[in-house]
């Protein structure tokens, strides 16, 4: 009777020990020190691959900046270089009158930068390669530099981006410096030439490809006149750089033109 009791207890203990052994063996096998059955050097290679994510993210950012710059140039061509608050005639900015807008370099740069940000934000909405663009476009301090044939935008990042891979984790600086071949200054040049040659422009026919009037012959003029208002559009047509070519649409009030003509650029 006593033997029977001891043996029964012993069996239960043995059963528990055996089960524990079974569980330990299986979990060691399944979640062991090398769960992926890596070959020698696999971790190093994977780390290298994960390091490349930073490179991919940087290129994604750089190309996003460049695409946004081209798109901003296109937007400026459609919307025109003048501020939205400028006086208009039939939706065209009224130029060369007493109370009309004057094109200034700083405001032109600001407008271009606004268009740039409008597009850049769309690239930063979703994570790329599991890297989230912290604070989107607000993560940057922007500097725009305009030279003769190019525009450069520098974005200094306030916060770093972080990547966490299977084997390594790191942060990367998402600052950028990109320039595209785009003559933003040409708007100022054309505006100045237009203002000095308004009489020449007004004498022209409806459509003049290869316009002169102090402007390079790579421009085409479109003109329409309704009463005292002349509607003009000057578009750069050659070469065919669709994204970066410029265009200015405006109206001139013939009545008020003479009063102000001599006061421009004084």
């Amino acid at each position, binding site marked *: 009777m006593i*033997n*029977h009791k001891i*043996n*029964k207890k*012993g*069996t239960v203990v*043995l*059963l528990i020990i*055996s*089960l524990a052994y*079974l569980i330990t*063996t*299986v979990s060691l*096998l*399944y979640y062991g020190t090398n769960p*992926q*059955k*890596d*070959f*020698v*050097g*696999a971790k190093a*290679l*994977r780390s*290298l*691959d994960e390091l*490349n994510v930073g*490179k*991919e993210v*940087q*290129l*994604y950012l*750089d*190309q*996003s900046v*460049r*695409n946004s710059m*081209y*798109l901003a140039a*296109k937007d400026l061509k459609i919307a025109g270089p003048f501020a939205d608050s400028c006086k208009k005639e039939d939706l065209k900015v009224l130029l060369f009158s007493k109370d009309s807008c004057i094109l200034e370099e700083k405001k032109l740069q600001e407008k271009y930068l606004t268009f740039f940000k409008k*597009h850049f934000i*769309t*690239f930063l*909405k*979703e994570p*790329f390669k599991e890297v989230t663009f912290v604070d989107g476009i607000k993560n940057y301090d922007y500097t725009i530099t305009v030279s003769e*044939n*190019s525009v450069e935008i520098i974005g200094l990042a306030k916060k770093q981006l972080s990547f966490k891979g299977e084997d390594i984790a790191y942060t990367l600086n998402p600052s950028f410096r990109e320039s*595209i*071949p785009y003559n933003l200054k040409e708007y100022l040049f054309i505006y100045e030439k237009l203002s000095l040659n308004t009489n020449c422009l007004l004498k022209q026919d409806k459509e003049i490809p290869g316009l002169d009037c102090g402007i390079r012959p790579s421009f085409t003029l479109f003109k329409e006149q309704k009463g005292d208002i002349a509607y003009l559009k000057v578009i750069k047509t*050659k*070469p*065919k*750089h*669709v*994204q*970066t070519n410029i265009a200015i649409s405006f109206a001139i009030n013939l009545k008020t033109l003479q009063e102000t003509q001599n006061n421009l650029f004084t």
Partner: protein
Amino acid sequence: MRKGALNHGADIIYGILIILIAIMLQSFYKEPSTPTTDFETIETHTDVTLFTTNFLSTTITTPSNEFLTGEETYGDLLFLALEDKENQAEYLSIFERTMSKYIRNGPRIVGGYWLKTEDRTTLSRAGILSQDAPIYQIPYKNGETISLQIVFEA
């Protein structure tokens, strides 16, 4: 008699446990990955990343023409090809010409490439292609991407 019977019972339990362990070990056993296969997969992906990032940020060597100033990058060229649909063929022909020159000078021989838009329209393709080749996503606009798949020759 009772003692002997109990010992037999324990033997049966051990037997069952051993069989269970054997079955479970069998089911949890994973085929170790082949070093060469994994090495090649990671190495190819790394090479594609380097090739693609270097290639896309390179300035085009084509001189200034009607469509390009000569200061655009290959990445720009793809963007312009999608933006300027009217002259898309011009941009893509420059891309194809210059890419074939570029890939000949690379560290590994490119067997082929495949360039697709987000809606899977093929923009350009050349050489031997494989569905399994690594893909690099190039930003276009409004969250859309262009995919460039590079296949290296073995």
